[in-house]
């Protein structure tokens, strides 16, 4: 049993998997000498050497593409993108190359790469260190997308992602890196991709969310349960592609009222998919319209005022839960 915050949990997962399997390698900007700008790979260069921990030039196409080619030849690379915002220059390699490789070669070539991407808003990050760009990867057949909310999930899911034979885009919310500690289990605590987790049980309203949204949901759930006696069920999706439709159906069937929450801007976010699924497949179960809460459809700012105004807030989520409960 190891007590970790989320970034430590990620580092531990990397370390354990690199220890276990000599084909696991790490590459990215500043992952070596500096141990990553968030310290997710601290000490790994010393432990595994420059052959397996590669400080790359600032070239995201190469980071992704080199990882893909290396994976095809037998390695299991973990490619770190310093900020999820910098996945964009490599977008083509992810959606047109990694995602299509196995499919287009009728199973000949697999791409067991994990694309790690710290995402989400932190104070003062501005538009290039705050983005939540997970949606398009969820629209891309052939990719898996993971976004854990807790140290334990981060550890177990990253290990699963590394062992997975397909490309996985792994989003880590920067704000959650150091906020919470918990026992993350040991070397064999590998979780299964594609499974949501009921983070909290409740009967009245379901909040379906992931990553940073889980923590927001917890605060909002506390507020409405103590003040209004509303029982909130929180479903942490954990994997965004493929979605765990059964778990979503269970929570919606149980509560009849569903709110989908994420930090990405609202229009065309993952919430749209979840809401559309619920509206189409669980129409008869719904006692109220499925509600989406996400960031405003704007960019995020360096200044705190505009950033706070753009992001979903505890009050905003609590208000939406109340309106749903009383619909």
């Amino acid at each position: 049993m190891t007590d970790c915050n989320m970034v430590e949990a990620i580092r531990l997962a990397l370390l354990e998997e690199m220890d276990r399997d000599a084909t696991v390698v790490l590459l990215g900007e500043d992952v070596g000498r500096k141990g990553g700008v968030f310290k997710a790979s601290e000490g790994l260069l010393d432990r595994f050497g420059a052959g397996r921990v590669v400080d790359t030039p600032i070239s995201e196409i190469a980071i992704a593409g080199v990882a893909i080619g290396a994976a095809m030849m037998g390695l299991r690379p973990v490619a770190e993108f310093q900020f999820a915002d910098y996945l964009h220059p490599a977008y083509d390699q992810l959606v047109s190359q990694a995602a299509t490789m196995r499919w287009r070669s009728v199973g000949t070539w697999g791409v067991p790469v994990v694309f790690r991407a710290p995402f989400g808003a932190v104070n003062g990050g501005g538009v290039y260190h705050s983005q939540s760009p997970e949606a398009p990867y969820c629209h891309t057949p052939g990719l898996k997308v993971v976004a854990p909310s807790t140290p334990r999930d981060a550890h177990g899911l990253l290990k699963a992602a590394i062992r997975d034979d397909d490309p996985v885009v792994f989003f880590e919310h920067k704000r959650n890196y150091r906020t919470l500690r918990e026992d993350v289990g040991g070397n064999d605590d590998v979780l299964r991709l594609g499974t949501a987790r009921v983070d909290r049980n409740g009967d009245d309203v379901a909040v379906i969310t992931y990553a940073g949204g889980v923590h927001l949901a917890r605060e909002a759930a506390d507020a409405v349960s103590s003040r209004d006696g509303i029982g909130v069920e929180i479903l942490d999706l954990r994997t965004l592609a493929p979605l765990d439709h059964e778990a979503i159906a269970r929570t919606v069937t149980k509560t009849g009222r569903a709110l989908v929450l994420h930090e990405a801007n609202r229009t065309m976010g993952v919430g749209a998919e979840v809401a559309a699924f619920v509206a189409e497949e669980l129409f008869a179960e719904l006692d109220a319209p499925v509600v989406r809460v996400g960031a405003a459809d704007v960019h995020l700012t360096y200044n705190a005022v505009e950033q706070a105004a753009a992001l979903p807030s505890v009050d905003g989520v609590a208000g939406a839960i109340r309106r749903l409960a009383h619909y």
Partner: protein
Amino acid sequence: MDADRLREVHRLATLTRAVDERLWALSRQGRAGFVLTGRGHELAQIATAMSLRVGVDSAWLYYRDLGVALTMGVTPHEVFLGALGKADDPHSGGRQLTAHFSSRALRIGSVSSEVAGHLPHAVGAAYAHRVLGDGGVAVCWFGDGAASEGATHEAMNFAGVHRLPVVFVCENNGLAISVPLSLQMAAPVAARAAGYGMPGLTVDGTDVDRVWAAASDAMDRARAGEGPTLLEVGVPRMLAHSSQDDESYRTDEERAALVAADPLVALRRRLVDEGVLSQDDVDAEIASTAESVRDDAHRALDAPDPTPDRLHRWLYA
């Protein structure tokens, strides 16, 4: 090149040309959908491909590399299965366009239609060859057009920094579809090499001896741990870019001149002159190849189409 090798080049070039011609015929008949071939590039493709050890070195082709594939051991029948979109095509099961090869046994990475998308893969393979110590060299072919892509720069720079075992072969035919070299770059492709700390050479791609020598040197350097090489071979693009291209940007005279200067015809002339082959040998090779290739195509025409039930197959492991 010694006489045996030259005869092998001739055999492969004759084969490549025969498959090429058959593909265009299938396209004109409306049977093959989208055909791209390397007519004029063959000798350079074959001479570079002959320098690698199939199954040890990894090969990263682009869509025009029919000659590379046939040299490495892809069969004409497979080519036709692919061109006709057949289920049994081992390279893409008919999912990808003509000449989009992929083979684990031959270590050919999956070709994508996307220009330059594969250069970082070749570099990643070279990195894996080193980490795994499997002795492989990654060889990567691409066109002059691909040289302008950001992916190409990032790949070459990464290879240069880590002195990886990779050979970059640029088949410079002077055109990116219709865009002439003068609108693509202000210096030869090989002039880029210095900026990546690797040797860069420009070689006449119709001269098999020089291409073979340059490619062999580059492979030797890579195997000796001396890092990457950029080899630019000048070749003619004898045909339209693809079966969808009306070639409105070239005159009939330009095209006629290209056909007149066909490097395969020139090679045959030379081999006969030098006594490596007799004219009868050449004629016999052409005739027997045409026949076998026709057979290969016919068998492919009869092969089954994919079925809709495999729609989701191979999307995930």
